C-alpha cells in the first residue's frame, strides 16, 4: 500500500513538473517570437518613398509597437521632405 502511494505521488509530481516545463517553454517561445517582430518589415530597394507610394510599405506605426510609451510625449514630429534632397545628411559616421 505504501509502495502504491509512493508511486502515485511520484507520478503526480512528475506530471506537474512536465506541465510546468512545457508551460515555461511555451512562454519563452512566445516572448522570443514577439521580440523578433521586425519580421514585419518590407523590403525597400533604394528609396523609402518609392516603396511607400507603391503601397508595399508596412512600417510598424500600427503593427509593431506600443504608442503608450511616455517617450512619445516629447518626441519631435517629423514630416516627409523632398526625396533625395536635404540640408545635411544623417548616416553612419
Amino acid at each position: 500500500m505504501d509502495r502504491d502511494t509512493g508511486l502515485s505521488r511520484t507520478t503526480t509530481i512528475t506530471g506537474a513538473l512536465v506541465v510546468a516545463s512545457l508551460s515555461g517553454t511555451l512562454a519563452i517561445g512566445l516572448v522570443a517570437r514577439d521580440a523578433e517582430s521586425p519580421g514585419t518589415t518590407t523590403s525597400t530597394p533604394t528609396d523609402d518613398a518609392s516603396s511607400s507610394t507603391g503601397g508595399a510599405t508596412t512600417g510598424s506605426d500600427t503593427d509593431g509597437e506600443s504608442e503608450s510609451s511616455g517617450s512619445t510625449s516629447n518626441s519631435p514630429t517629423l514630416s516627409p521632405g523632398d526625396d533625395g534632397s536635404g540640408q545635411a545628411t544623417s548616416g553612419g559616421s
Partner: protein
Amino acid sequence: MPLAETLPVGPDTAQWSVWGTVARIVVTDPALLAEAAMMVRAELSAVDAACSRFRPDSELSAACRAGGRPVTVSPLLADLLGAALEAARTSDGDVDPTVGAALCGLGYDRDFAAITGRTATSAVRVFPAPDWRAVRLDDRALTVPHGVLLDLGATAKAAAADRAAVLVADRLGTGVLVALGGDIATAGPAPAGGWRVLVQDRPGDPRCTVRLPGGAALATSSTVARAWGAPGDPLHHILDPRTGRPASRVWRTVSVAAPSCLRANTLSTAAVVRGHSAPRLLAGVPARLVTATGEILRLGRWPA
C-alpha cells in the same frame, strides 16, 4: 568609411573634416555663417582637447592615467562625462563609456583614418567592459578605476552637436543646424517647413528625406560605417559592452529623432546593441531601422 556628405554647400552652409568625419553647419541667416562656423570650430576643438582618447594630452587621457585617484576636471569634461554616464544609465548599460580598452584590443586605438585597412589579431579580442558604475563623477571630481580606459565617442560627438547648436543660436540669434557625421542638432528658429535632413547610410543604401522642427535632433548609428578587420571577420565600432565584441549586425543602420542629439544617439546606439529587441526600446520614438538585408522598419510615426 565615414559619412559621405554629398549634398551641395550653399551660401548658408559651411563644411569641414573633423574626427574622421564631416562637420557641417547650416544657418537661417547666411550673413552670420562665418561667425557661426568659427564658434562651432572652437567648441569642437575644446571638446577634442577635453575628451579625445587618441590624444595623450587630453584631460580624459590624464584622468585614465591617474591610477584610480580622483582628479579635478574642467566643467566641459564634467559635462561630457555626465552625458556619457547618463547615457549608460538610461540605456541600462548598452551605451557604456568603459569600452575604451575593448576598442583598443580590437585595433581601434587611434584616429579611424589611421586604422582603415588594418587587420586585428583574433587572439586578443575578449574584453568585456568594466562596469560603468565604477566610474565616479562628483561635481568635477572624476575617479576612473585603475586600468579602465574611457571612450566617450558614442556620446561626446552628439553632446558636442547639442552644445554647438545652442551656443550659436543663443549668441547669434540665428537658427542653426549642426551636423557631426550622422549626429544632427538644431537650435533657434527653423527654416519654413523645417530642417530638411537626408537619411542615408552608405551611397546606394535606402534613403529618405525628413523635415525636423526647430530644436529637434536626429542621430544615426551604423554597423557598416567605421568598420575594419579581416575579410570574413569584419569589425565595427559599436560594441556590446557585455561581450566586448561588435554588436551583432541585426541592423545595418538605426536613425532616431529626439529632443536632443545626445538622447537620439543614445537610443540609436542602444538599438544596435539590443538587436532584435530594439523595437521595444524605441517604442513611441520616431525611428527608422534598416536590416542587414536592406529592409526598412519605421517606428513612432517616422514618415513613409
